[in-house]
């Protein structure tokens, strides 16, 4: 039996990553011939069950108690463990959202399950469920199975198409959960940058990466950090791109150097940053060293602007390398996008 374990968002809807996991679960259930169940945690879980009632599940289990209205490890782990146990599933598929990344490995432990995360493929092969995930920060791809059940697999976002069907009526059953006594942790809220200051856009087509070269001395022997900031922010606005950065440009701030203050560790891509999924990526003033480029694993089309014709991007890491001054190129790009 397969359980697809999901959670709702504040408004009761399912996040895109959850709908992608539903598709993965349907596909695996068809391949294995296993029964499919759905478990949903959070606000209006029953409403969310209705939204995916056409997924072919034989049962919909929900936990919508006030304790799980907001994300918190203790209560989310208790709810997830209860759903895993109640369902009796051998395979559990769940989206790798931040809410589930916080609690599901712990929930799996409570339910006697074993957990794997960042799964990029799950299918039936030779009567077994075989998963794929990356090791060593997107350097080595491993295919594996587990000789133990229950087995919980957290699916990375962007791998499967989101499930889509007309909503119906799912006969959801609310599961009983022991949340324990008073919780020590309280959810205070979400802190988000102002809409016009938001530079991380997971759904953008294009990732724009700024490297440390933007803050270095230019042809005239001077730095032009202010101009660099205007060019980058102008481009992000015009191209509706998501902003990534190298580690070195972020570290400059903590080292007291003149820096682009709108770039934070959150923008960092690579070994100690994120590995975003975008259709295209444009790198500027970044050398394309391996610790950074491992974060580009899921960027399909890659182009780079750099003054060094022998930089990492030239070594088969980009489709096109423009050996040029990024200040001049991006200034012209912005002019053309604005026209």
């Amino acid at each position, binding site marked *: 039996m397969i359980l697809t374990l999901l959670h709702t968002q504040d408004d009761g809807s399912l*996040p895109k990553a959850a709908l992608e996991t539903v598709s993965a679960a349907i596909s695996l259930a068809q391949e294995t011939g296993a029964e499919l169940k759905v478990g949903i945690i959070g606000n209006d879980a029953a409403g969310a069950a209705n939204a995916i009632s056409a997924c072919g599940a034989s049962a919909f289990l929900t936990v919508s108690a006030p304790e799980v209205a907001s994300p*918190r490890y203790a209560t989310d782990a208790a709810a997830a463990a209860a759903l895993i146990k109640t369902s009796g599933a051998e395979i559990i598929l769940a989206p790798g*959202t*931040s809410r589930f*990344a*916080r*609690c599901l*490995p*712990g929930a799996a432990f409570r339910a006697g399950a*074993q*957990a794997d*995360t*960042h799964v990029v493929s799950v299918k039936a*092969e030779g009567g077994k469920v*075989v998963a794929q995930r*990356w*090791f*060593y*920060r997107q*350097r*080595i*791809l*491993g*295919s594996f*199975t*587990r000789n133990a059940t229950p087995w919980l697999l957290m699916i990375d976002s962007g791998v499967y198409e989101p499930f889509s069907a007309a909503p119906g009526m799912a006969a959801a059953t609310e599961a009983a959960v022991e949340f*324990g006594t008073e919780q*020590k*942790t*309280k*959810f*205070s*809220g*979400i*802190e*988000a940058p102002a809409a016009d200051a938001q*530079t991380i856009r*997971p759904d953008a087509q*294009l990732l724009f990466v700024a490297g440390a070269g933007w803050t270095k001395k230019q042809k005239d022997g001077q730095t032009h950090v202010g101009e660099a900031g205007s060019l980058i922010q102008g481009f992000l606005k015009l191209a509706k791109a998501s902003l990534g950065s190298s580690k070195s440009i972020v570290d400059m701030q903590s080292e007291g150097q003149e820096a682009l203050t709108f770039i934070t*560790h*959150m923008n*960092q891509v690579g*070994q*100690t940053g994120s590995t975003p999924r975008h259709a295209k990526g444009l790198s500027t003033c970044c050398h394309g060293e391996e610790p950074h480029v*491992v974060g580009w694993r899921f960027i399909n*089309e890659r*182009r780079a602007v750099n003054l060094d014709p022998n930089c990492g991007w*030239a070594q*088969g890491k*980009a*489709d*096109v*390398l*423009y*050996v*040029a001054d990024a200040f001049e*190129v991006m200034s*012209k*790009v912005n002019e*053309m996008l604005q026209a």
Partner: protein
Amino acid sequence: MTNGFQIVVCGSLVPDPLQTLEPVSSPQGPGLKNETMLPSVLDPWAACALYEAANLAKQIPGSKVYLVSLGPKAKLQQLMMTVAQKVPFELVAVDGSASGFTDAQQVAEQLAAAIGAIPGLDKSRLLLFGGCSSASRDAGVTLQLIGERLGIQDQFTAVDELKVADDGSFTVKERIEGGRYQVSTCTGAPAVLAWATGSLPEPPNNPQVGMMNMRGVMPALMKARKAEVNTGAVAYAATEIPAQKRDTRIVKDTPAEEIAREIVEWIRR
């Protein structure tokens, strides 16, 4: 906060990120070619956790930092030559594989046992730190499992900020989707905090700190318990480096305007 925190940081060695990694198979499961020869560094996110731990311990009198590391003893010794110069800590070493292909369940069991055996450990003062995922297994599972084994109900993942109040309660900022933070408060220890980058730079080497730490490091390595960690219930079918080398077209000696036009056309396509 009268007695301070006991901050246990879990972190081990990973191959230097500049190294080329090549998977190899063995009867014990997958590994890396020349694994024992590869230069190592302290796992980057665990290093962030260690620096945050040291900074917190400095601010709150009575606090102490432990670094609990599972890795081959000889490689841990090499690693400590640099790490021990960064911030004050007491090492708890466990001698076993630091491979990214070992099973997190087994690693968590070994680390929880090592933490539980720290003399004088007071769980009511315990903050369990580590990276939000390693640069080897990169799963983000181990710390939660250790927390569960130690009975810790309050856990936080991808932490960038921890602010402790006078009464020992604290506020945590965790990274969530879309460049946002989830803000939570907790009435106090024990808690698990799996760090993202935090906000501190890498401390400069301090030979005095190094000498002080090394007094404890060598005995800790001498008495490091042997731990059998392997692939556990995981059966690997294949490990591979995908062929992703691109045929890079290099455009040079071209006016900026022409390059810009090509980029704009590509973006709009």
